[in-house]
């Protein structure tokens, strides 16, 4: 059995977001790029599953859609422990384009289980996993906060409004994962970093697809009014403000 983990290359979470060319382009000057936090947790869990599967899971592959700038991110995924990697050599134009590229990788290599993060922390689309499953005709489970493999079968914990459901699913399947899937991401060690250099990273050209959506421009939210301070000894005043001024009580 083989697992594919889809990796998105995103700005570091502390990045101060700025735009250029009349707010039409995201300004990447000085931006540090990282593995999308959910994808990193998904990879961590995929490796744990492989290690405890008694050989049933043979391989964990990572794939990304991105230009050469995404290479350090995918190398880091190899250093964390993925066995091999694919990079589809194109800008990830939109969710559909990205999903269509990843679908080609899945079809070619035949993965049984695919992990995608619940969203990428840049455009917050949260659509790649769902689209990928539909293009492939696979089952999908979203908002997955735990995956286990026991007696030859996977079970998935899915968060729902006010609770959790345990599901089983027929492979092949796309699991769209969120917080909880692993607590802390695995950090590459020295040996991992050395090994990563010799692991296969295959670069493939993008397949052509429709261009369904495009970003026209960006807006920053209006500046917030200054915070009104209320004396800690006077909570009646705070309640009064929330009632008469904010009108939320």
């Amino acid at each position, binding site marked *: 059995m083989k697992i594919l983990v889809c990796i998105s290359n995103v700005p570091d979470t502390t990045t101060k977001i700025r735009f250029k060319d009349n707010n039409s382009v995201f300004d990447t000057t000085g931006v540090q790029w990282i593995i999308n936090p959910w994808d990193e947790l998904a990879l961590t869990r995929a490796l744990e599953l492989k290690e405890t599967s008694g050989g049933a899971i043979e391989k964990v592959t990572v794939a990304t859609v991105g230009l050469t700038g995404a290479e350090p991110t995918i190398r880091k995924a190899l250093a964390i422990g993925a066995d091999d990697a694919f990079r589809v050599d194109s800008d990830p134009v939109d969710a559909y384009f990205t999903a269509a590229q990843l679908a080609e990788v899945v079809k070619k290599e035949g993965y049984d289980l695919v992990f995608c993060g619940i*969203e990428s922390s840049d455009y917050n689309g949260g659509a790649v996993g769902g689209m990928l499953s539909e293009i492939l005709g696979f089952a999908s489970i979203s908002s997955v906060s735990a995956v286990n493999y026991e007696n030859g079968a996977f079970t998935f914990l899915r968060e729902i409004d006010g609770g959790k459901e345990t599901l089983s699913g027929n492979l092949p399947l796309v699991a769209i994962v969120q917080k909880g899937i692993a607590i802390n991401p695995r950090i590459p060690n020295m040996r991992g970093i050395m090994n990563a250099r010799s692991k296969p990273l295959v670069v493939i050209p993008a397949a052509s697809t429709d261009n369904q959506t495009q970003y026209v421009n960006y807006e920053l939210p209006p500046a917030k009014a200054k915070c009104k301070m209320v004396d800690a000894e006077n909570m009646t005043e705070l309640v009064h403000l929330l009632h008469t001024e904010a009108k939320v009580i």
Partner: protein
Amino acid sequence: MAVLVYTENWDGKFKKLSYELISYATKLAETLNTSVVALSIGNVDEAELRALGQYGASKVLAAKDGRLGSLENKAFASVIAQAAEKEQATVVVFAHNFTGKAVAPRVAVRLKAGLAAGVAGLPQSTDPFIVPKKAFNGSSFANLKINTPIRVLTLFQNSFGILEKPAEPTIESFEPTLNDSDFATSVKDVNKVTGKILLTDAEIVVSAGRGMKSPENWAPLEQLAETIGAALACSRPVSDEGWRPHEEHVGQTGKVIAPNLYFAVGISGAIQHVAGVSSSKFIVAINKDKDAPIFDTAAYGVIGDAMQVLPALTAAFKEFKASN
């Protein structure tokens, strides 16, 4: 033509969220010179379905197939896409919640439709179709142009509001074609908390961070929440430490919420935390450090020790409630 809205139900009942979706679709349909069709999946009684007319739905499709009792992404996507085809929908609207995020991308692929996820308002133009959506974790809005003749939108909660526009909807039973292969996953066990206000629905949220020092100190937060009917939330370290369950974690890697009122108690206001709560209408920060970055985002601030401020605040609310 039509604007199709997927209206989710919770144990047979709709929520404010469903009415907001219909209100949004009704406004959009006016611009497009068309009407709103609501699709309901599951067991919902006629009176509840009819109530969707109150916000402008002119037709309600009810799919009651017994196999659709719990969410199966593939099957739900098939049902919704079939309804869209039947009604020749040019826009399909979902909520940007667990279900919407799970199903909308699949529906978009089926309909060869472009998807805008996390939509924050009405389109600024419908030809070309350009909608504002949230991007970069709430730090900005992006205007997204959708090039396809059919568009799928997931609407961010509380970004439009509820507008009444009474209509008398026709209610139609809808029987889509479903195959066994559409049911590839099955729910084995459900574990639901009842009687608690859901974090994602709550109008008021009381949230706390590492400044609370220990999980034993949550009682004053619980008392405040109970007094004002709020849901509880927390910062990431609090859930990572196991002080509180993961479901309460808000922020970039947790839940993104948009209540009317958000209390941030003993939370420093890191960028990743604010990403999950910046759409709240009002934020009240309680922190002992006057330089905590949370005060840059908050509308009201209190500098003080949470363990002293919280009981005083709860008492003030109780007094307010008694006299109002």
